């Protein structure tokens, strides 16, 4: 194991996807302190098993989309490795690389926002085949597959001829999912897939995603700010803060017994239906997320942490296993053990 927090190794021999110590730096305009290197990912490690869902949570700018783009091979890490089925796709070129790219697909918040309004749903779904010409050679095969995919996501064959404006948000998201499925991927990265949808429709799409996973055995990386949604879909959860995973474990471990103060604050701050006490028991953090151009020394959460000590500014905290739960890991010098967010005992409070 490296120094960084390693995503659960689980009992599986070979995870589908394994990310080790990945770092990604962007060169940007100089900050007031003169730094122009923005480390969007700073030592990310995680694993993803077949048919598994990993929930990825964290505030905007923490690196979720950069991580997603890296796994899609749209960004090359500066350091660290990505292993897909034991192979490093970044070492491949040409056709091999293309074949690998097929295996990870993505669903965005609104699949049509970035697409030509003059395309039909059928054209949108079959668009990925333009880069992968070997998949469905005849137009007849392609049409049949489009109809199958529409059926799979609960829509009608006749919908293939309609244009984006004719669909509701939920239907558009179904089409976005069908498009992601077009290349038979092993992994689908879902970036806030239901946050633009109304609650009643959100439930329809979440049910569809669960059903598809069961039928197809596809793995998901599910990015969302809504912790109740993540809890519903995810087997395991990773919490990111300023380019690093600061806590990981099962959804229950992380949300019910968070060990890292940031994970505790996030859980506690999330609105909950069963809390009618006007949020009085919430941990309200001070300040805001610091600029990723000038991350704090030592523990990156220390500027907002209510229990920071001198050592937090001096040393980056090592990965720490929760007692009795070796796969529940966090990076804090003083991990919480008394906190039980859902039962309302918030000790300590800031």
């Amino acid at each position, binding site marked *: 194991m490296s120094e960084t927090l390693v995503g659960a190794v689980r009992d599986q021999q070979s995870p589908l996807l394994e990310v080790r110590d990945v770092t990604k730096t962007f060169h940007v305009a100089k900050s007031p302190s003169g730094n122009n290197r923005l480390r969007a990912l700073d030592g990310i490690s995680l694993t993803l098993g077949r048919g598994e869902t990993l929930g990825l949570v964290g*505030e*905007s700018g923490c690196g979720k989309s950069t991580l997603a783009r890296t796994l899609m091979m749209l960004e090359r890490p500066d350091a660290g490795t990505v292993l897909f089925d034991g192979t490093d796709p970044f070492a491949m070129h040409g056709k091999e690389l293309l074949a690998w790219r097929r295996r990870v697909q993505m669903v965005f918040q609104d699949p049509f926002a970035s697409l030509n309004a003059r395309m039909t749903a059928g054209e949108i779904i079959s668009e990925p085949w333009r880069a992968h010409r070997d998949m469905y050679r005849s137009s007849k095969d392609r049409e049949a597959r489009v109809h199958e995919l529409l059926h799979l996501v609960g829509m009608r064959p006749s919908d293939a001829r309609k244009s984006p404006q004719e669909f*509701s*948000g*939920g239907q558009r998201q179904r089409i976005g999912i069908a498009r992601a499925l077009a290349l038979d991927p092993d992994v689908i990265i879902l970036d806030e897939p239901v946050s633009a949808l*109304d*609650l*009643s*429709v*959100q*439930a*329809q799409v*979440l*049910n569809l995603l*669960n059903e598809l996973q*069961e039928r197809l055995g596809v793995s998901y990386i599910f990015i969302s*700010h809504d*912790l*109740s*949604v993540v*809890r*519903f*879909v*995810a*087997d395991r959860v990773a919490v990111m803060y300023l380019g690093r995973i600061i806590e990981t474990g099962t*959804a229950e471990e992380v949300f019910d017994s968070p060990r890292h103060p940031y994970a505790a*604050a*996030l859980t*506690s*701050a*999330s*609105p*909950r*239906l*069963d*809390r*009618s*006490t*006007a*949020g009085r028991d*919430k*941990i*309200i*953090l001070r*300040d*805001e*997320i610091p600029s990723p151009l000038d991350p704090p020394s030592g523990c990156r959460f220390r500027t907002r942490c209510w229990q920071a000590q001198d050592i937090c500014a001096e040393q980056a905290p090592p990965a720490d296993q929760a007692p009795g739960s070796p796969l529940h890991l966090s990076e804090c010098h003083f991990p919480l053990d008394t906190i039980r967010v859902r039962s309302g005992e918030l000790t300590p409070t800031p």
Partner: protein
Amino acid sequence: MSTIDTASTPSPVLDVKGLSVTLRTPRGTVRAVNNVSFQAQAGKTLALLGESGCGKSMTAKAIAGLLDPVAEVEEGQMILDGQDLATMTARQRRKVAGPQLGIVFQDALTALNPVYKVGTQLGEAFRIHQKLSARQARSKAVELMQRVGIPEPESRVDAYPHQFSGGMRQRILIAMAVALNPSLLIADEPTTALDVTIQAQIMALLRSLREENNLAVVLITHDLAVVAEEADTVAVMYAGNVVETGTVAEVFANPRHPYTRGLLESVPVDAVRGSTLSSIPGNPPELHNVPSGCVYQSRCPLVQEVCRITRPELLPVRPASATAAPGVHHPGTVAQAAACHFSEELAHV
């Protein structure tokens, strides 16, 4: 159609009665807000809850006098501190906006003017309504920034909106809304665009402002959990209509409209991973397609013939606990009401 027993409640800061708003669209004139009534009390939060497009913002804009030119108040009263806003001239309404009524929108970046310093924008209210000098207004602006928790206000008062984070911009908007100590604050999805920990900060700020100033707050949201945590009373909107209203405690514990019930069941609270969430089939009707009869009929699991013919009125429901008589409630509370022919049946589900 009065559903709320005003005799026994303290007189509300805002009393909206039978408000209807029409909208001119290329496909004809439609009603975006239909016969909407609710009240906001001093020191309390009323939530307007509903899905996208149901008419929440339109209702807020009608009250604030900020309707788009294509929209128009067709009918109804909006009584603020005893005066009906609906009968006022534009000039009179401008005098009310600020000293009596403040409004905060979701998108703080577009709501602020990018070419003026925030201090100038914050001080404007004082220059216009209190005729303060630029220098006096500036020091008022610094005070306000302090009050809403913006660090180092003296040095940041001369910064421009883009130099602030989303959370800080939302604080600035809130500061502008409460600058002249209004009695009513309307907050339209004030935290939707913000991260969770910043959302919690902003909601805490709104709560403390409400408590310190005895503000009546109308909180517009599509998030049931935010309603559960922040609001005292709720009006659930669907396709331009209020379909259920009452205290949050009552409505969420015993929803008496199938739509409210469907929404509550769609939330993945403690849902077992891999289980099937209950969901509402279909989508809300489009405005030019709202059916006669019940607005919810196309999605309602309990729909009967009568629902297609007669539109149910928003009427007080018999309390789920059979002890109290219908419509009778304690002073200061709001009776639960629902617009469904079968709301009584729902009490026993």
